[in-house]
């Protein structure tokens, strides 16, 4: 888009004034007449069967209005995809309450009472008899021949064998154990590599290793990390005229209606979700939280609104955790640094619920970022009795890149090649390939990649050469080091809908189904439509955050999809409205539609002209497709319902994104860090950081900067301090509050970080924009890890985070002193 007035410009988002004045309402800020409060009873043990429950004392308490047990929850319902495909419900999926808790801290039952104190007192008065069951918190322990299983049925998800040509069987828990021989090298800190669940390969890996001048074989572990959303997953629910009204945070206003209706077995038209503001998601509430069922069902039972405030401790249990991944990489390099072959094995930990695919999905980002000539990937995901694993910013990609980047840094040192040079040499370019070949023998590829330009620009902005010249020099007890890292993640989906109406008042009423997590994409993407319609931004009225307001089918704001997917949908809706406006003008003023242009708030051509307000009035007169009484057939039924409700009010723009896309959209980041380590104490600080993003056209620079820098700092937390560990004896999480798994504070980061975007349009999307939420994460984490090894050498750490005791012990003993494979225990 050339000569833009809105796209690429800063502006004040429509929600910001409410935020700075304290008027913005998150779920816990709503009040309802006669509102009750809910409290949860949590399992004190990691795996047990509830033998008996005595609620008599609680029920006798004045003020107690309802008690909800797991047996009262509806059975999980099947879901139907857009393509009409039925996805069978997993009977062992995570539910809101359970009589077989599979992690300590899981909710067993809930009480609603007139106030929170009464509800808490009632919880205390309920007697539950738990029968303890075997448990395991370490995935590698569970893989041992005699290792315990997280569930009675086993320790991995799988599907039963079916005859060739028949559909795969339903997911089930199976048992997978490795042999004693597989663990032969465990005591040397080398990750065992037994039978995998997922395996792929391209090229000749063994030939690559044979022709390599350097072959490294490294084990590295990435610890697990809580999402720590600042707004816990509090929810308020009530029923009116058979409809459920839910106030709760989510990463998708529109798609959360589908999940709530599935959880509660309601017709989606009977669910209204109010979610104008959400206090962080980071992947942990993609389509809401299953726990929001609890206040909904308690409300139905008690006949009153129910507020379920979630405490920080409860959030730590139920909120979600990025899975730890143990990795082992064998990598072969040519003399010039070219990556010839990679053999990568990853073990992912999981809760006893649905598999989080991080271990299995991460390696393809390694194949994209470093373009090895041949690669083999193996992965397994093991169930443990620990809290639910959920996607977290750059899921899988972060861990795989964190496992691989230190290997590349070590190789560059051994081959005496500059760290920027070796990454540039192996970098993808254009429609670069990734992953294994499909059934037709074709490998997938990116829509575009400009990581080489990002490395070049970052080298300049960061001052790589000057900083490198002083790295390794000791001044007093301090030594500095510099690190660079590259990162990538998927950055956009396709096929969603745009919807707006230009009314006779001349204003453009845009319906936004995007969740409002603060990335501002809920507003930013619609600047595209306003720009195309030549409507000044002050004449745009945006509806968002309330599903009764007729919102269109929209992507989930996860996996950096939104900017790409919804800018395409906005473009499609605006193109639809422009075509209609031209036709309206031609019918009204004469001439052919093609002779008209939309510009300056008018539709003009051949000396004739009418305002968009006049077009809107005329569209209502003409009816049919012009004002939404006739709709395109390919739009989603959610959009069709919303558009029908808005029909007859003006000129409607409504369309599905059907633009072609050749390849899969990925965004890239190059990150550069300088650290200063005190070798007497092991403490270190990040002196400076620069990130250069390659994610196509920038729609809103300030929001982009916030994402680029903010997600970089999230990644830094993975290098600096943040992790959760589990006590093996009792199976309990040792981080139940923020300070025990410390995310970065404002003092942990450099004071003047620099972030830039290449701003090169992606050729495969009409607006040119891709997402940026995920790829900064691994860049931030790995630039610091690599800067540490630049300062201190290769023999310091073999797992992240790298804390001062890691450094101090390694420097004292001259070798890494922490076992990588015990990172989560």
């Amino acid at each position, binding site marked *: 888009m050339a000569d833009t007035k809105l796209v690429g410009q800063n502006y*004040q*988002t429509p929600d*910001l*004034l409410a*935020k*700075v*004045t*304290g008027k*913005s*309402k*998150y779920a*816990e*800020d709503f*009040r309802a007449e006669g509102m009750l*409060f809910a409290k949860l009873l949590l399992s004190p043990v990691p795996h047990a069967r509830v033998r008996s429950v005595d609620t008599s004392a609680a029920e006798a*308490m*004045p*003020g107690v209005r309802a008690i909800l047990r797991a047996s009262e929850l509806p059975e999980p319902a099947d879901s139907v995809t857009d393509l009409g495909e039925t996805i069978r419900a997993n009977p062992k999926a995570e539910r809101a309450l359970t009589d077989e808790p599979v992690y300590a801290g899981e909710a067993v039952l809930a009480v609603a*009472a*007139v*106030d929170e*104190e*009464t509800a808490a*007192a009632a919880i205390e008065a309920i007697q539950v008899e738990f029968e303890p069951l075997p448990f395991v918190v370490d995935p590698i322990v569970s893989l041992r021949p005699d290792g315990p299983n997280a569930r009675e049925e086993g320790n991995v998800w799988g599907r039963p064998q079916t005859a060739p040509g028949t559909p795969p069987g339903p997911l089930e828990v199976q048992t997978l154990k490795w042999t004693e021989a597989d663990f032969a090298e465990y005591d040397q800190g080398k990750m065992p590599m037994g039978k995998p669940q997922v395996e792929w390969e391209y090229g000749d890996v063994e030939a690559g290793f044979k022709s390599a001048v350097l072959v490294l074989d490294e084990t590295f572990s990435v610890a697990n990390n809580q*999402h*720590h*959303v*600042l*707004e*816990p997953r509090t929810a308020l629910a009530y029923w009116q005229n058979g409809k459920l009204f839910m106030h709760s945070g989510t990463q998708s206003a529109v798609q959360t209606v589908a999940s709530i209706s599935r959880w509660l077995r309601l017709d989606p038209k009977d669910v209204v979700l109010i979610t104008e*503001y959400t*206090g*962080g998601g980071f992947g942990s509430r993609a389509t809401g939280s299953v726990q929001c069922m609890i206040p909904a069902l308690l409300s139905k039972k008690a006949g009153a609104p129910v507020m379920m405030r979630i*405490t*920080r401790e409860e959030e730590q249990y139920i909120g979600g955790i990025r899975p730890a991944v143990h990795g082992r990489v064998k990598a072969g390099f040519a003399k010039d640094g070219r990556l010839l072959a990679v053999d990568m094995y990853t073990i992912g930990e999981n809760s006893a619920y649905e598999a989080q695919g991080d271990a299995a999905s991460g390696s393809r980002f390694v194949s994209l970022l470093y373009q090895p000539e041949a690669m083999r990937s193996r992965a397994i995901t093991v169930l443990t009795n620990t809290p639910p694993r959920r996607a977290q910013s750059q899921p899988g990609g972060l861990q795989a890149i964190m496992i691989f980047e230190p290997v590349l840094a070590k190789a560059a040192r051994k081959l005496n090649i500059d760290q920027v040079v070796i990454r540039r040499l192996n970098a993808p370019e254009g429609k670069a390939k990734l992953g294994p070949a499909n059934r037709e023998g074709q490998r997938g590829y990116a829509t575009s990649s400009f990581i080489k330009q990002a490395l070049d620009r970052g080298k300049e902005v960061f001052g790589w050469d000057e900083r490198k010249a002083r790295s390794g020099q000791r001044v007093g007890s301090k030594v500095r080091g510099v690190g660079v890292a590259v990162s990538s993640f998927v950055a956009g989906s396709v096929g969603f809908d745009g919807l707006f109406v230009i009314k006779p008042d001349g204003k453009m009423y845009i319906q936004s189904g995007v969740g409002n*997590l*603060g*990335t*501002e994409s809920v507003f930013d993407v619609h600047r595209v439509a306003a720009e195309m319609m030549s409507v000044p931004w002050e004449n745009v009225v945006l509806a968002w955050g309330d599903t009764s307001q007729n919102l269109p089918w929209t992507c989930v704001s996860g996996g950096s999809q939104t900017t790409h997917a919804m800018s395409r949908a906005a473009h499609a809706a605006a193109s639809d409205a422009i075509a209609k406006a031209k036709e309206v003008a031609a019918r009204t003023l004469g001439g052919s539609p093609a002779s008209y242009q939309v510009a300056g708030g008018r539709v003009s051509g051949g000396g004739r002209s009418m305002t968009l307000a006049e077009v809107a009035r005329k569209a209502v007169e003409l009816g049919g497709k012009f004002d939404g009484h006739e709709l395109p057939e390919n739009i989603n039924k959610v959009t069709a319902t919303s558009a029908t409700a808005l029909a007859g009010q003006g000129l409607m723009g409504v369309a599905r994104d059907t633009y072609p896309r050749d390849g899969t959209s990925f965004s890239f980041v190059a990150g550069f860090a300088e650290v200063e380590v005190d070798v007497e104490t092991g403490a270190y600080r990040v002196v400076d950081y620069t990130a250069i993003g390659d994610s196509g056209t920038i729609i809103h620079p*300030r*929001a982009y*900067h*916030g994402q680029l*820098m*903010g*997600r*970089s*700092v999230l990644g830094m*937390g993975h290098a600096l301090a943040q992790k959760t560990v589990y006590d093996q004896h009792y199976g309990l999480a040792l981080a139940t*509050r*923020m*300070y025990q798994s410390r*995310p970065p*504070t*404002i*003092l942990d*980061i450099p*004071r*003047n*970080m620099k972030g830039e975007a290449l701003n090169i349009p992606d050729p495969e999307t009409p607006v040119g924009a891709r997402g940026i939420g995920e790829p900064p994460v691994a860049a931030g984490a790995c630039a610091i890890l690599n800067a540490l090894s630049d300062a201190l050498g290769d023999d310091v750490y073999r797992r992240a985070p790298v804390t001062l005791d890691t450094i101090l012990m390694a420097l004292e003993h001259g070798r890494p002193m922490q076992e990588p494979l015990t990172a989560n225990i």
Partner: protein
Amino acid sequence: MDMSHDDAQTTRVTPNGVSRRNFIKGVVAGGVAVSSAAYLFRSSPLVSGQAARAGSVERLLTLTVNGQSRRVDVAPQETLAMTLRYKLGLTGTKLGCDRAECGACTVLVDDVPRYSCSVLTHSVRSKTIQTIEGLAAADGTLHPVQRGVLEEQGFQCAFCMSGFIMATVGYLKKHPNPTREELAHGVSGNLCRCQDYDKILTALERGAAISREVARG
């Protein structure tokens, strides 16, 4: 009920057969006390029973919040955050952790930033309390720090925002001309999980600059 307590800030809870609940209803009807339901510590018999124990403190007190005198029924164990949010309807103050870890609940007590989740309401009876809702002038003119945030599009999800803004307003009262580094230390008791610190600091610095412009006239 213990009636020995004598404090000008506290209304004596009624003796002689008039229930505390009815008394408060009467006060509410008279428009004197805050009328919103005392949600979290509503007078269920369970809680009333506790309040009636010997040695308990008086519950009806006067708070000075955002320049207004507010009469409010406060349980002995009630934190300022809960009073503000559930009794006074000031939900701009957020609860992120309820244990002084995150700073989302920061308000000013006598111009000093305090974690309102960790301050008992009874301890601030004679003090001046300011929340995010009280920052803008009566005519809607925003505080310079609010303006700085608007100008720079500071913060993302903004659940931490009111805490950060109040911490900054408090810090600037004593340090009107901070460097970026000093300002970072000034708000280091506040956590942002979007980790938007870089943009936040730019916005708060802008707010500090506007504050100085305003002070100069």
